[in-house]
């Protein structure tokens, strides 16, 4: 699981291995462990990518799947 931008500041980390069978399962595990991070991930502006593809619904995860939470983007 990867966190970017302010989400990494909220969590205090940017990358961790977390066992989970689906995105919903992963969110449940975060809610139990760090409610503040869970709250931050629920913000509508935060988008989710699984294996570098954007997803909007729940999806199942395989061992080794890469889940990234992306807050509002700002480049240039």
């Amino acid at each position, binding site marked *: 699981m*990867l966190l*970017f*931008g*302010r989400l990494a*500041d909220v969590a205090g980390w940017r990358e961790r291995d977390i066992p989970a069978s689906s995105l919903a399962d992963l969110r449940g595990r975060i809610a139990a462990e760090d409610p503040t991070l869970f709250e931050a991930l629920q913000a509508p*502006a935060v988008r989710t*990518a699984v294996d*570098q593809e954007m997803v909007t619904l729940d999806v199942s995860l395989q061992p080794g799947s890469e889940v*990234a939470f*992306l*807050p*509002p*983007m*700002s*480049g*240039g």
Partner: protein
Amino acid sequence: MTQAPFDPGLALGEFCRDRRETGAVASFTGLARAEAGQTTLLELEAYPGFTEREIGRHEAAAVARFGLQDVLIIHRTGPIPPGEAIVFVATAAPHRRAAFEGCDFLMDYLKSRAPFWKKETGPDGARWIEPTDRDRDDLARWETQ
């Protein structure tokens, strides 16, 4: 993408070289501003792999939409002190309108939709920058056309 400082002049010089059928090259260089001492450092974060692929998709869209002959995008990541270049975009086309519009379109995309996260550090601490309403308006121009 590059972590190292880059010279937009060298990039433009190289991009313009040996073009016999390009009438127009537009470029944009984004520089880190000091904000009268309020910003001492910018930090740009990307999602390696994903960011390049997303930029590549938009580059291809710009080429098709504006009939560009060539595009160059350089985007720096990591810590960037004031006065140094963050981003450089150059577009080549037969005529000037396509070159300008392609460059403008790509910059609006890079500013508010490309997978980068930007943190400003100043005397009062650090904050993450999010797209402004202006950025969203700029981007919306391309959707209504």
